[in-house]
């Protein structure tokens, strides 16, 4: 229950942060979505064993968070939530590819371990960037930006509903768990109780969702949410998009860490 409450609190904190008024919040959401898409494409374009070359890309989420006044603690918590999935995805890589490709002192590192490290860095960077994007844009504006960029309306609307129903389902789960805990005196949920609990929860969430839908219909909702206020794609948005795209290009094609290392080594000699 406390972890569920904390997760909901973090989601609400993201919504609160999205209403701050910073230069990065004021940017057209489409610029942020497109820059993030360019970031993810760049991240995905590196070879499977690249690790150090990925690191300069961390500047993007760090800059988003710093300029948008997003607490790094919150970003870390939300990012670590995705860590188990990344670990499960990459768990078999060290066993699939055991050929040593790197010698670190006495330690021979196999291609599989490098691929695992690369997947870990990519996963964490993608998670932290997505979280920062939501925190400096807001889910509603994010969905509206996807809509304006030509994403299928069904997709952007479902995403918005998912966000809202996530809270509903979370609140229902929280209430049900709390009611159970108050009479359980520390006894964990028995396996045979899981089915009844899940079924009960599903029914409650379903009924709640139906009530929400009825309330929406009562206010004229016909399946399409009205478009939100539209911002202009101004020079700031162009500057943001082109500036970061240029940086991603440099990261991808100039191997910045090696270049910086070379420069530092050269400067020191």
């Amino acid at each position, binding site marked *: 229950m406390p972890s569920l409450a904390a997760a909901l609190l973090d989601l609400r904190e993201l919504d609160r942060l999205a*209403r701050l008024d910073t230069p990065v919040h004021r940017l057209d959401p489409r610029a942020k979505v497109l820059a993030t898409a360019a970031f993810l494409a760049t991240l995905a374009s590196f070879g499977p064993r690249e690790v150090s070359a990925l690191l300069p890309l961390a500047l993007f989420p760090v800059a988003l968070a710093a300029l948008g006044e997003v607490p790094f603690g919150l970003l870390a918590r939300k990012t670590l939530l995705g860590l188990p999935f990344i670990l499960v995805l990459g768990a078999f890589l060290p066993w699939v590819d055991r050929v040593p490709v790197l010698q670190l002192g006495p330690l021979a590192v196999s291609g599989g371990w490098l691929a695992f490290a690369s997947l870990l860095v990519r996963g964490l960077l993608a998670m932290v960037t997505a979280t920062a994007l939501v925190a400096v844009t807001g*889910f509603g504006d994010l969905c509206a930006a996807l809509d304006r960029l030509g994403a299928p309306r069904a997709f952007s609307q479902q995403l918005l509903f998912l966000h809202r129903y996530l809270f509903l389902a979370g609140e229902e789960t929280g209430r049900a768990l709390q009611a159970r805990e108050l009479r359980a005196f520390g006894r964990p949920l028995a396996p045979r109780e899981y089915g009844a609990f899940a079924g009960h929860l599903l029914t409650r969430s379903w009924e709640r969702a139906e009530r929400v839908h009825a309330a929406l219909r009562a206010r004229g909702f016909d399946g399409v949410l009205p478009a939100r206020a539209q911002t202009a794609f101004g020079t700031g948005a162009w500057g943001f998009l082109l500036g970061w795209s240029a940086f991603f290009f440099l990261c991808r094609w100039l191997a910045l860490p090696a270049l910086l290392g070379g420069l530092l080594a050269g400067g020191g000699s």
Partner: protein
Amino acid sequence: MSHHLVEVRELRHAYPDGTLALDGPTFTLHHGEAVALVGANGAGKSTLLKHLNGTLRAASGEVRVGELPVQAETLAQVRRTVGMVFQDPDDMLFMPTVLEDVAFGPRNLGFPPPEAEARARVALGQVGAAHLAAKAPYHLSVGEKRRCALAAVLAMGPDILVLDEPSTGLDPRGRRLLVGLLQAFTHTRIIATHDLDLASRLCPRTLVLHRGRLVADGPTRAILADRARMESWDLEAWPPEA
């Protein structure tokens, strides 16, 4: 016939499990009337209200709003006329901010964004919630949520207000505010409530539902004070015995 009139005739509704929720209530609401709908839990109050704006459709019988029968083809016009404030404001407040939520109805009615926002701000002002416009709905207190849910309906400019248990969960101050607000409105109002004090303050006329049947329709004070009948409907008389 006035276009503000609601007419309910021999309305019947059964839920999928066979429970007969409404068993033939028949009544009319006239322009500008404030009517209380009282009854014990499960008497059919919410079910009846949901028929007035077409959230539920009659299995048999008829509901008319003005000249319009409530049916699939007329739902848009009916819902423009009949604004329903649901029992749980959390079911209504959906959008990221209060202002967007209150503007949601006007946007669906086709108002351009600036006009929808202007209507939303006026409605928030009417319920004393203008200062909540930029807040997220889930950060509000129960009383604030109720006022915003009411604003969400007022912003659509309905002729008839349907309120389901509007005072539930309110503290005395919130309840006083709500009573003051509802007293100030000139809309035709039908209010389902267990709050008999609120009913006696706001509504000169009362309908009593008992097990889906309309068992009384008349002056509020006379009905609520009839101890024997009220107890036979699983209710308590108002005012209570000293």
